[in-house]
């Protein structure tokens, strides 16, 4: 589904080095890593916001390395919810539909899954709660029917109730609708709830790749062990 082949990308003083990774179709993949490990930069490269210095990116077997972000049809949920403040909730959600032909049934299905129909009655994006705003931005990425969904710490700033709600939605997106997800986080508990496959990114390189269980029980080196902390690493 998604294949990264020896990706290099430098950004100011930091660099992603030799990233090779493969994610299968309909897999829930969690990319773990401490802050500043380059997780967001990697997502930006996959989404096309940055182009890699070298290396190649394939989606469904097609090379997309130097394609503009608008041509890739990848859903990207940013760390901030980034709703367009000058547009209404409805305009926000329908923003991408101007550029993609999507059938009504699919859109209805998404709305039902996210349970956001009553949010349309409200106009402003500014008075949405954290969880609601997250759901609206999620809906905004999903209505364009992306082949891959990138999530940058999606549960990061949510209260426990909406966290659970969003968690459930993410899981059913993967299990019921067969969507491939790449979820970036530094929260191991979150990962345990969701991950099929996982990898640890440390200081711009892949530290370990495998199932989550594998990583938790058998960290391959000291850096991974340090990242996992006392509970798992030692």
């Amino acid at each position, binding site marked *: 589904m998604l294949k990264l082949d020896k990706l290099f990308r430098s950004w100011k003083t930091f660099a992603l080095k030799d990233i090779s990774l493969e994610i299968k179709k309909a897999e829930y993949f969690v990319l773990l890593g401490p802050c500043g490990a380059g997780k967001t930069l990697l997502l930006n490269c996959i989404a096309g916001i940055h182009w890699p210095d070298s290396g190649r990116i394939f989606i469904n077997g097609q090379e997309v390395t130097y394609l503009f972000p608008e041509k890739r*049809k990848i859903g990207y949920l940013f760390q901030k919810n980034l709703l367009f403040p*000058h547009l209404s909730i409805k305009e926000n959600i329908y*923003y991408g539909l101007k550029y993609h032909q999507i059938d009504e049934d699919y859109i209805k299905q998404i709305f039902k899954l996210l349970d956001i129909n009553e949010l349309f009655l409200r106009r*402003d994006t500014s008075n949405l709660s954290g969880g609601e705003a997250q759901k609206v931005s999620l809906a905004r990425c999903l209505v364009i029917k992306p082949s891959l969904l990138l999530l940058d710490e999606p549960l990061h700033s949510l209260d426990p109730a909406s966290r659970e709600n969003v968690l459930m939605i993410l899981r059913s997106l993967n299990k019921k609708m067969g969507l491939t997800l790449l979820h970036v986080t530094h929260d191991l508990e979150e990962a345990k709830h969701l991950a099929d496959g996982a990898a640890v990114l440390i200081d711009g390189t892949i530290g370990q790749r495998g199932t989550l269980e594998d990583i938790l029980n058998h960290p391959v080196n000291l850096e991974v062990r340090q990242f996992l902390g006392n509970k798992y690493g030692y």
Partner: protein
Amino acid sequence: MIYLLLTLLILIFHLSFFMNYLDLGANAVLFAANILFAFHGFSLYKKTTFHKFTLYLLGYLLLFIFIFFLGKSSLLFALFIILYSGIFSVAQLFPYLIILIVSIVFLTPYWLQSFILFGLAYASVSEVYKKTHSRFLALFFTLGFIILFFTIFPIIYFSFQSSPQTLLLTLQNSEFQRALANSLITSFISTLVVLVLGVPLAYVITRVDFRGKKIIDNLIDLPILIPQTVAGMALLVLLGPKSPLGEFIYKNCKIAFAGGYLGIIAAQIFVSSPFLIRSAMDAFAGVDPQLEDASRTLGAGSFITFWRIALPLASGGIFNGCILSWARALSEAGSLMVVAYRPMTVSIYIYDQFIQYGLGESQPAAILLVINCLWAFVVLRWFRYQIAKQIIRKGIKYAETG
């Protein structure tokens, strides 16, 4: 009983002392004022601290010295004493009384204007102090008000110098009308040109880091640094009738820059462009670039993203820049004197009148220009506010870009 005694004392004092200096009427008014002062002071003495009471007496003494003794105006003194004793205990109004007294005594010819301005200054400063309880901020604000005073006072004073009849007569003068129309049309066109060319430049400079960006960034301000007459000369050397480029354009398009509308517009663009470009840059810098990234991942190309996200969110600041740029173009005179003295714009017209007939003749036209500009400024600001309200709905942080 004690009040009666007090009254009697003051009466005796007045009869024996003031009768020599004042006529009967003034003496009577002053007598009434003194009674009021004494009665109020008496009740104050019973209610408040000794400290405050001494201040009360000191105020009287100061008024006496400055207005009665030095200013030799007994009626004004009586009026102030009445106001003084009435307002002394009202903490909110008392400072205004002091401002009024100071304005009348020390700034006699401009007392009304200075009272309005100082009153406003005091009101704003005390408001700042009330909000923050910081003497430092209040002091800073006061310092700031001095520079505002320096710019506003001459304009306000100036605007009251011609009678409405004179203004009306000037307004009906066809030469003035033509000059005003010239100014409005040319400044509108030049602002439009700067808008169409400057906004893309501002967008690229704020969004992209490229080599040489700092240099371009500094070059934008160049027209502000250069004296206007020099700017005019530079344009004339480049586009004038004897220059190769000017000659070429004249030959092929039959358009003369110097001494024509195109020259006016060129000069206005030259001097006004930095204002719009700077405002637009600030406005774009206030728009989170990640919003644009989000738009692009949703399928919108870079131009559509600019059109649907960056431009609407920056529109408030850009419109503000348009107003500034337009105002600058409208008020331009220095470079126009060199490039295109005729057809006359209104600023040149005023200068022309001043040179030919002096201050008195040019004044009404100048006042009309000021009034016109202020009026347009207020209307445009209001319009900008409405636009901002429509495009950027209530309660959204991004609205604070302009």
